[in-house]
């Protein structure tokens, strides 16, 4: 229906249009950013079938690809477009002594399998030791592979990160990884569209991570399911690309298919000059197209939510899904106030976390701080943390890991001397990988220990069996590392201002 809109409009007189609209709920309206990109990638749209959607770039990694490569072998099929497929090793890799063979046998086997599969199928691999290696959602953008208007998929739910460029990007399962390898397409039904607006000025010490944790605390972990979410509003627009990536990254934590932000000069400036970004005439053509990528003023969304930036405090989570977040000065909600059908799960969640109803988390001692993951491991995150910790030191009882998102981020941090600042503060700068976000390598949080983590999931056991995760921004995590407790970063920042 959408594709025929122009013809329909031309063939009806205005009063006929009005009655037609009333009859069919069809309206003459502008397009959303999401629909513009989707429509530009539809290979085939047939009644009763999902659309066949063309995928510009397929990112793969060692954990969700081996069974897909095996499937291709069984079918006797090649990777259809190997040049549009990019591989890296990230989930399973050690973050210390990466130049040595991987000690853990199964991890080593899986990473070796990726190397072997990529060689056999002609896919470029940025594996361990390669200057472009890193977390798949960090390297795509930093290499200029992720661009406005594109479609990107990966066997990883945080693929939504790439939507920060004004692209459609989402996570897929391994059967779909095989599908994209075999066809460069994906069968997908068009999701509904949601707009989330954030307007106003952020408080000092509050950043992109706090915004998205705040949003998810309002929508719940399921509130975005079935939607493509466009983030808009002047607060979102004021964010750097790194901040926008943090926001889009966690779209999946409210269940959304993907998240995206219309490209603007910030986006264009970020992409410009990167390794695989278009150059010369191609660049000019690309930019002209990118400037058409926005939701029209009269575009219709199936749902619209609005938030005020002033209402957002530094956020922390207290439970076992990312929707269970509060402002750092707020108290843990009381079980009796929770939806009756969910009270049992809620109580289990608090018990797992070792917390109780109405508890204030300010001042609560913590054991570990993890600064990293595809949510917060980019150079800007490391700069922010370094600026804060310069001249400070971690609390004695806290273990701190800083894990850069990519080899390039690591090299940049070293070039800027951030590694020295971290070292002086007791925050060793490790090597790139997914690390303690999901504890597939040896970076695991021990049972019962509290970790303030800049990652994206606080699920039970996510960072290691029986570990307890408190999600927060890089600044809030750094503050916890320094004080050894959950701390309101705003107080430390104010203190520093007073001292001068």
């Amino acid at each position, binding site marked *: 229906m959408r594709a025929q809109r122009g013809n329909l409009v031309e063939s009806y007189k205005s009063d006929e249009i009005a009655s037609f609209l009333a009859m069919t709920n069809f309206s003459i309206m502008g397009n959303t950013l999401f629909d513009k990109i989707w429509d530009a990638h539809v290979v085939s749209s047939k009644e009763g079938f999902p659309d066949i959607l063309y995928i510009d770039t397929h990112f793969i990694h060692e*954990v969700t690809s*081996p069974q897909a490569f095996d*499937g291709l072998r*069984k079918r006797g099929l090649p990777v259809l477009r190997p040049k549009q497929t990019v591989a890296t090793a990230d989930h399973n890799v050690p973050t210390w002594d990466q130049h040595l063979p991987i000690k853990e046998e199964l991890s080593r086997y*899986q990473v070796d399998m990726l190397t072997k599969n990529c060689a056999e199928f002609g896919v470029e691999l940025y594996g361990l030791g390669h200057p472009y290696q890193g977390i798949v959602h960090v390297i795509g953008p930093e290499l200029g592979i992720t661009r406005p208007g594109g479609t990107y998929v990966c066997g990883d739910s945080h693929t939504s990160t790439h939507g920060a460029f004004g692209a459609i990007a989402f996570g*897929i399962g391994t*059967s779909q990884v095989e599908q994209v390898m075999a066809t460069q397409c994906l069968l997908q039904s068009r999701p509904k569209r949601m707009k989330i607006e954030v307007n106003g000025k952020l408080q000092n010490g509050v950043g992109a991570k706090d915004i998205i944790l705040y949003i998810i605390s309002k929508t719940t972990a399921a509130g975005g399911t079935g939607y493509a979410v466009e983030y808009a509003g002047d607060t979102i627009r004021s964010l750097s690309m790194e901040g926008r990536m943090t926001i889009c990254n966690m779209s999946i934590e409210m*269940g959304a298919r993907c998240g995206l932000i219309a490209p603007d000069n910030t986006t264009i400036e970020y992409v410009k000059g990167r390794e695989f970004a278009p150059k010369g005439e191609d660049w000019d053509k690309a930019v002209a197209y990118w400037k058409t990528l926005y939701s029209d003023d009269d575009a219709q969304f199936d749902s619209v939510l609005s938030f005020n930036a002033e209402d957002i405090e530094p956020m922390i989570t207290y439970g076992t899904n990312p929707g269970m977040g509060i402002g750092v000065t707020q108290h843990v909600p009381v079980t009796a106030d929770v939806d009756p059908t969910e009270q049992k799960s809620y109580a289990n969640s608090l018990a797992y976390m070792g917390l109780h109803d109405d508890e204030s988390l300010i001042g609560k001692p913590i054991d570990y701080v993890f600064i990293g993951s595809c949510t917060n491991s980019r150079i800007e995150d490391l700069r922010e943390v370094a600026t804060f910790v310069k001249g400070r030191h971690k609390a004695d009882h806290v273990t701190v890991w800083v894990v850069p998102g990519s080899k390039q981020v690591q090299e940049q941090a070293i070039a800027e001397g951030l590694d020295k600042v971290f070292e002086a503060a007791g925050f060793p700068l490790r090597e790139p990988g997914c690390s303690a976000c*999901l*504890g597939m390598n040896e970076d695991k949080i021990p049972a019962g220990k509290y970790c303030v983590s800049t990652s994206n999931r606080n699920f039970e056991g996510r960072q290691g069996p029986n570990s307890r995760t408190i999600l927060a921004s890089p600044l809030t995590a750094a503050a916890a590392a320094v004080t050894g407790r959950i701390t309101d970063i705003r107080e430390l920042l104010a203190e520093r201002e007073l001292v001068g």
Partner: protein
Amino acid sequence: MATKIFKHIQSTAVPLPIENIDTDQIIPARFLKATTRDGFGNNLFRDWRFDENDNPKQEFVLNNPTYAGKVLVAGKNFGCGSSREHAAWALSDYGFDAVVSSFFADIFKGNALNNGLLPVQVSDDFLAKIFDELYSDKDAQLEIDLEQQVIRISNTGDEEAFEINPYKKACLTNGYDDIDYILSNKALVEEFEAKR
């Protein structure tokens, strides 16, 4: 490649009335190191099923001999979090053919459908009825008729219609496969590429 053909199930069921069960619970990340699709059932709900010494936790329903069957019945927002298809593989490998919940996470639902594991979304009220019935009669049977898109509690005759994408239904009932479908349209893909 043809996949498993799915039409009708009648089975006892396993109740797991917990909301927001994420795929990290279904199969923890440390068990994702395999390079085949087999054997994930052994680690299904690993950290809820076994303690740190690998002893079964008696209080967890999969260790309770009272309940068994081909249908798992779970609280809302089942399968949220990571896109790992290993979660669907683990449920299938353990012996489940269907999961019933009042809400499914998007990616999990797709992964399940691609693996012959049927996600049956029912209303909150119907879900509550199923739990009530399972707790009053452990042998209560659920009937899931994919052709008719109906789920029924055999004892009480209560039934509810459920939705499924017609294409995915045709795939499940005929053993069709997404890749075969797209490859049958390969000319369109090439045409699309040529136009860009």
